[in-house]
């Protein structure tokens, strides 16, 4: 019996290490289940709604829950990202329409330093609120793997549309027309 004790311990330890590795990898991976649910119309509740995030250029904090009742377009961006700069005018133009319908864009900076983000906001004349996700915990809940990404949250706090690439054409305008009509 003692003869098998050491190999058994070695196998047990190796299995434990593999389980740990699998756990780590699973938590690093992107969450694509949101995309699938949105695609089939089974709109998931926006994650991390009560997570307080620092407001860019301010000492205050804001959460998605603070905007409950509004249609919210979350745009994840970074100042160093060229596609983010390219879509900034589209978002700002849309914001001017959204404020008339009790809706707003919420910029979320990710993988960026605050001074560069502030400069970006200033350069592009962004008027919508911008918060910082320093840890990345908020955007990771949405399965964010890079920038830019955009999520549309309806008045019930559910994700009803998303784009994991640069906004092109009139995707945002068409989506918002549909979502605002549904929640009117």
């Amino acid at each position, binding site marked *: 019996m003692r003869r098998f004790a*050491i190999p058994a311990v070695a196998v047990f330890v190796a299995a434990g290490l593999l389980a740990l590795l699998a756990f780590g990898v699973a938590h690093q991976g992107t969450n694509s289940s949101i995309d699938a649910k949105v695609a089939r119309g089974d709109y998931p509740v926006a994650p991390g709604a009560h997570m307080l995030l620092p407001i860019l250029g301010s000492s205050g904090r804001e959460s998605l829950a603070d905007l409950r009742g509004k249609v919210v377009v979350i745009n994840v961006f970074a100042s*160093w*990202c060229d596609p983010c700069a390219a879509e900034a005018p589209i978002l700002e133009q849309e914001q001017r329409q959204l404020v008339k319908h009790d809706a707003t864009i919420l910029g979320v900076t990710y993988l960026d330093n605050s001074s560069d983000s502030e400069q970006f906001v200033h350069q592009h004349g962004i008027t919508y609120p911008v918060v910082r996700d*320093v840890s990345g915990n908020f955007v990771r809940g949405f399965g964010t793997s890079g920038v830019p990404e955009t999520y549309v949250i309806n008045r019930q706090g559910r994700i009803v549309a998303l784009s994991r690439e640069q906004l092109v054409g009139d995707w945002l305008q068409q989506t918002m027309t549909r979502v605002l009509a549904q929640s009117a």
Partner: protein
Amino acid sequence: MIRIARRAGATALLIALIAAPLALASTTAAAAPRASLTDIESDVMCTSCREPLEVAQSPQADSERAYIRGLIAQGETKQQILNNLVAQYGTAVLGKPPAHGFNLTVYVIPPAIVAAGAAILALTLPRWRRRTRAAARAPAATAPALDPADAQRLEQELSQFRG
């Protein structure tokens, strides 16, 4: 009066001679080494590409480098810069993750594996050595004895050869 002045002058000179190296030493100790981009780059990550910043080539890596250069220009020490980077990019920016939560595995598992390996060797090596020694001490295996008839026949044949 002159003697007192001379004595006071000598005392002041002595104090100055003793104090000067001490003051120099304390200044040197207080001044933290000046941070360098090369040094910091090796300790931090490009957070978007998940590579060490020293090898990363991406717009985010360039932005991070520019930010570090700015902090160096402001005269911040390496530790202050690292703290600042964590405040801006989160703990993912650190090459060595902080030792809490799941990150503890990085610090605990490798030494545990080495310790377990050493323990296994410590247990098994003496046993292997004992077995080897016991095998060396055991008498060599002998051939089975011949029965009397065969022994007699062998002796006869050998005697023929001996002539």
